[in-house]
């Protein structure tokens, strides 16, 4: 008996990790909040620890209008030009 596989015939998109930062001292931080309750507060609090401990500066606060959809590429492209690393996470 011959059975077809029910899986997609297109391979998953390959994702590549960004290179590890050698130091975070004095770097520019971006914050991407997902619009959920307390997300902005939690992420800003988190970013402030980097400011206090490593002299970082918060340069960008970006918002997602839909927490469960990928951030629009235009948002990511813009943020990538302005910051050295991005903090994001699920607020709720």
């Amino acid at each position, binding site marked *: *008996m*011959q*059975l*077809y596989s*029910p899986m997609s*015939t*297109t391979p*998953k*998109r390959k994702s590549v990790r960004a290179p590890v930062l050698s130091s975070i001292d004095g770097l520019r931080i971006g914050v991407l909040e997902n619009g959920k309750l307390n997300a902005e507060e939690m992420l800003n609090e988190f970013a402030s620890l980097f400011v206090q401990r490593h002299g970082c500066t918060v340069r960008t606060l970006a918002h997602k209008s839909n927490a*469960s959809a990928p951030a629009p590429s235009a948002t990511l492209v813009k943020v990538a030009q302005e910051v050295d690393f991005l903090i994001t996470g699920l607020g709720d």
Partner: protein
Amino acid sequence: MATAVQPRIHEVPDDLLAAIDWCYEQGWTDGLPVVPPVVERVKAMLAADARPPETVISTHPATGLDLSLHAAAVNAVMAGCLPEYFPVVVAAFEAMDRPEFNFHGSTASTGGSAPLLVVSGPYADEIGMNADVNLFGPGNRANATIGRATRLILRNVFQMLPGISDKSTQGNPGKYSFCIAERSRGNPWPLLCEAQGYPKGTSSVTAYAGGGFCNVENHGGNTPEQVLASVADAMANYGCITLGQSVVILAPEHMKIIGDAGWTRERAQDFLFSQAKRSVEGMTDVGKYRDREYDTQHGDGAHALAEQGFIHRGLTPQDILITMGGGDAGGHSCFIPSWSRGRGSIMQHAAIKRS
């Protein structure tokens, strides 16, 4: 751009029961036995769509995994679909593929929604779908297997796996299958496919990320206001109220009361929107009030029916899909809440294309 590869074929022993067990072992099922997707049945399913099998009808936004007609056909066979059901499955994914539906988010979320499919128009009768008694229950092959095929595609093609990429806190029974036909017999309103603007004779499927099922019982109400006030109360209970959309399926008994009084669908939508509300004070008491949502509803462009001091369900009356379904007897309508807290998924519809 990922390169498509040929569909994989597995050789298994010529033993049907062993093949069913083999499918379990591959992790291809929803927990119930599947029909082993033998090559001949998949080809018969594909014959229901004139396009090449490699035609892509949907793509996962995060992983890039594509749904081809071929993969859809394999899963439709496994779900138990007949070839004449296939155009409904295809149309469902053409609707769900739009970014506004957000099938990734509504499947991955803790909210536990399932795609509710509402099939409208003559094609539902042609393939023997149930729009009548026990509408959401078991017993009809087309309803059961079209909904099940949708789930199997999310699982097998898009890899939305329970516990891994489907993190539903509780899920809901509709995640096995959630597919109904709109009842045309005795329906005083234009069918959904007509209201959606499709040409006469064209059927449609509407996809909606449904968060469960809420029965609305009212055997004593004899006016549209009484019946619809019961529905509105279900829509606005503290557990369900959000700015999300709504689906309301009116029982024929309830629809007769509303239709005989001359109410149109639009009037019923206006009434439900105006009545399905909670006060800001009450929402605050239960910890669900958010300034941002209130402002969204009451800001520029919000519908005039949004009453100050109250949170209504949805943003406008058009956010409420209402139609008729179910058996002749019984004052049991239903409200299907939307996925989770807001407007992360907006219902979509598509034409069912015959080959």
